[in-house]
């Protein structure tokens, strides 16, 4: 019954792509083309080396004109990759772009099956389904929506900062939302950066103040996105601004209040110093924090705990900026595009108890050491251990929480290089003997290998082998009072015991704790490891599957500063290219109500997640607001009268696919 009426008029062009050997190597493309030639409606059936190439597309266009084709089916890769390419080609050939259907015989067939015969058979079934499907295709017009030129950047680490500045310099209005009280992210905590050894703060803080002073950037630190509505070009975002108990407009960051706090000494572990020092309840994360505004930690402040504090801070502030009654604020903003640069977290060393973190006081994580060697750190840059001594022997253990089936399988990409950097800095600060325990040395970056060579010349020791354990159990006199690193030296095939005073764990990079919540809120995906998933690993590394949302930096996977900055620039450029286009085409896969069939039963009204359906009480019929419909098709499946149809996914199309797959022709069904 499907498409019977106009069957005679249908002239289908079918093309099967070899994709070099990718498809042709695993299934018999010629026999697929020959088979499809025999199907009703097919006027042309060909196989071609690369359908997505210019000559491939021209072939289709020529056939449309010469053979009067009015439907096109291409069997090649996934529609998620090239459907758009072919639709454009079809349109250029003079046909409505939606008279097209794509058959996925690469990702779904040739790449996953080894039995050539079965693969060919499957490809034929899929091709037949598509050929039968296009009979009921209709000409459609894509929806156009305007792009709001404002951009939301989430995360104020180096990636977010760079993306925000790039966009703001291009004249776009940017909202930069950062969860913690200051921007700067992990980079602000680092001492020096590899391989150039320039001071992280010196290159970062100027950018931070540019953000603060840029007239196009609205910086909201200590704030979180709580809700995202809308769609590409028109996102509506709700931001929660947590109370700092300080009026941000009034505070000038003089820090007099901190000085005058009733606590003479800090009691709360200082987040910025990786817990190596203590801070007061009223504090500023670090001297160059941006914005330069103090805040009060509610959990630690006596006034909040008992209400009986002398409030010396209030007295000290001549600008009356302290406000214990400050409330959380909710802001609504609108933005056309969003860049997520939410960063990473370091691997939790407690998960590998055999390395003694938390058990032996002189075992440190790399982040702690960054603070320890930093001039503005807890020890003003002097490497003094928790036991008060200066280390003479230091062991750095690579790949902690990386390249390990027990923890994380991926390589964190930065640890080799930062371990080399820390080895250099520790040696410089203490003149200790430094041992690096590594599995493989990975230095793939500009001037990275040269940095490694330099370290070799500095007489840093390298032992190749995964460390088994760190223990204080001495078996030799020289091990007394030391930490012993036990590892197999795979170069000479023996087990080494190296007694040291300080152990540094080169912890890997992991997805942030809330990565899953964030991805849900923004409607994007995560890869298996939990990092945000890019649209294509090679060709769309900063795009996501949700239009208008881009990712940058370590939230997408472990990466160092240069790569993060490059990606942030790319994400900004992608957002700009969308903004400057002014509008975007959306899939016209919206649903509509066939008025004559609608019984006015209201079933669809409650089912639509976007409230796109309303009921005309006079006519007693349902209506779908096309602008609100996002094309999920849930109402179509729910309508008891079959009165709702979804463009591109009409019932007829799906039934003809089912028939095709099961080797029935259109006429054999129903």
């Amino acid at each position, binding site marked *: 019954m499907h498409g019977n009426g106009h069957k005679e008029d249908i002239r289908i062009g079918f093309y099967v792509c070899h994709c070099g050997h990718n498809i042709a190597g695993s299934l018999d493309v010629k026999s697929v083309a020959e088979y499809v030639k025999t199907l009703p409606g097919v006027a042309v059936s060909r196989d071609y080396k690369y359908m997505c190439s210019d000559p491939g597309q021209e072939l289709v266009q020529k056939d449309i004109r010469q053979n009067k084709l009015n439907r096109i089916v291409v069997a090649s890769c996934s529609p*998620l990759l090239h459907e758009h390419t072919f639709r454009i080609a079809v349109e250029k050939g003079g046909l409505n772009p939606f008279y097209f259907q794509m058959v996925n015989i690469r990702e779904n067939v040739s790449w996953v099956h080894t039995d050539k015969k079965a693969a060919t058979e499957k490809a034929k079934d899929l091709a037949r389904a598509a050929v039968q499907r296009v009979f009921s295709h209709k000409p459609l017009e894509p929806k156009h929506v305007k792009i709001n030129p404002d951009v939301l950047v989430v995360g104020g680490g180096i990636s977010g900062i760079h993306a925000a500045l790039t966009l703001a310099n291009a004249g776009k209005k940017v909202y930069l939302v950062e969860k913690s009280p200051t921007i700067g992210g992990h980079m602000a905590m680092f001492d020096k950066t590899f391989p150039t050894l320039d001071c992280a703060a010196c290159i970062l803080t100027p950018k931070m103040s540019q953000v603060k002073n840029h007239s196009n950037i609205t910086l909201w630190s200590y704030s979180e996105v709580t809700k995202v509505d809308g769609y590409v070009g028109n996102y509506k975002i709700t931001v929660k601004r947590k109370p700092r108990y300080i009026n941000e407009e009034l505070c000038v960051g003089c820090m007099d209040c901190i000085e005058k706090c009733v606590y003479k000494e800090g009691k709360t572990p200082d987040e910025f110093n990786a817990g190596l020092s203590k801070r007061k309840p009223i504090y500023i994360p670090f001297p160059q924090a941006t914005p330069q505004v103090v805040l009060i930690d509610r959990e630690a402040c006596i006034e909040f705990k008992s209400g009986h504090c002398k409030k010396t801070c209030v007295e000290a502030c001549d600008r009356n900026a302290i406000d214990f009654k400050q409330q959380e604020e909710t802001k609504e903003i609108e933005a056309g595009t969003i860049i997520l640069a939410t960063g990473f977290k370091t691997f939790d060393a407690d998960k590998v108890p055999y390395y003694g973190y938390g058990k032996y006081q002189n075992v440190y994580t790399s982040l702690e050491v960054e603070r320890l060697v930093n001039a503005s750190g807890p020890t003003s840059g002097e490497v003094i251990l928790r036991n008060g001594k200066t280390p003479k022997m230091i062991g750095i253990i690579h790949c902690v929480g990386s390249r390990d089936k027990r923890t994380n399988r991926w390589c964190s990409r930065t640890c080799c290089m930062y371990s080399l950097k820390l080895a250099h800095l520790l040696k410089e600060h203490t003149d200790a003997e430094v041992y690096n325990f590594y599995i493989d040395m990975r230095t793939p970056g500009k001037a990275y290998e040269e940095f490694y060579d330099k370290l070799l010349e500095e007489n840093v020791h390298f032992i190749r082998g995964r460390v088994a354990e760190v223990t204080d159990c001495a078996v030799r006199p020289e091990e007394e009072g030391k930490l012993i690193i036990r590892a197999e030296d795979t170069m000479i095939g023996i087990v080494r015991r190296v007694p040291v005073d300080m152990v540094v764990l080169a912890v890997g990079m992991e997805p942030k704790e809330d990565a899953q919540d964030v991805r849900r809120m923004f409607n994007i995906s995560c890869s298996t490891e939990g990092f945000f998933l890019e649209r294509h690993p090679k060709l769309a590394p900063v795009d996501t599957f949700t239009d208008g949302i881009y990712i940058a930096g370590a939230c997408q996977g472990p990466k160092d500063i240069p790569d993060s900055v490059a990606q942030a620039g790319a994400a900004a450029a992608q957002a700009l290219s969308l903004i400057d286009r002014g509008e975007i085409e959306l899939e016209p*896969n919206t649903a509509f109500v066939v008025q004559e069939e609608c019984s006015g039963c209201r079933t669809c009204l409650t089912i639509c997640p976007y409230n796109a359906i309303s009921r005309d009480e006079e006519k007693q019929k349902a209506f779908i607001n096309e602008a609100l419909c996002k094309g999920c098709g849930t109402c179509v499946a729910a309508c008891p009268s079959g009165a709702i149809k979804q463009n591109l996914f009409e019932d007829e199309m799906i039934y003809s696919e089912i028939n095709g797959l099961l080797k029935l022709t259109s006429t054999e069904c129903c």
Partner: protein
Amino acid sequence: MVSTNEQSTSKNSWEPRIVAFFCNWCTYTAADLAGVSRLRYSPNARIIRVMCSGRIDPQFVLDAFSKGADGVLIGGCHPGDCHYIEGNYKALRRVQLLKRMLKDMGIEEKRFRLEWISASEGERVKTVINEMTEQVRELGPLGMPERFADWDKELDILEKEINRKGETVDA
């Protein structure tokens, strides 16, 4: 003897036919990932892409079975992850009802499966399709079209008989 032989050869050449409906955003993407990762799995499932598992009308499933599918697989985003907020919950509700119906129709439980597979779970696509293929293979062909044909024949015969009786009574 001969007939057993014949049967066994026809059984050997029989391959389960599974129709799979995958939502665009999670499970279809996962299947693409399985491809990109060159995971190998059995070639018995044929995928139909829909935007959301909420689009899947129970009729599609019944249709597939009645047209000769030996198994039907639905793949959608994990609860809470649907690209359209809650289409997968709608799918789940329909599937639960449908399962009861299929049971009444004598279609074994293992022939119909709903799976939440996220975009990153290429492995899962492989496992589910392999598993289901084996389970359906064990159950053997469902043969709904043949059953329908048999029923049609029986109906035909019945009808004829009734007609004949009617004629005789009339006479």
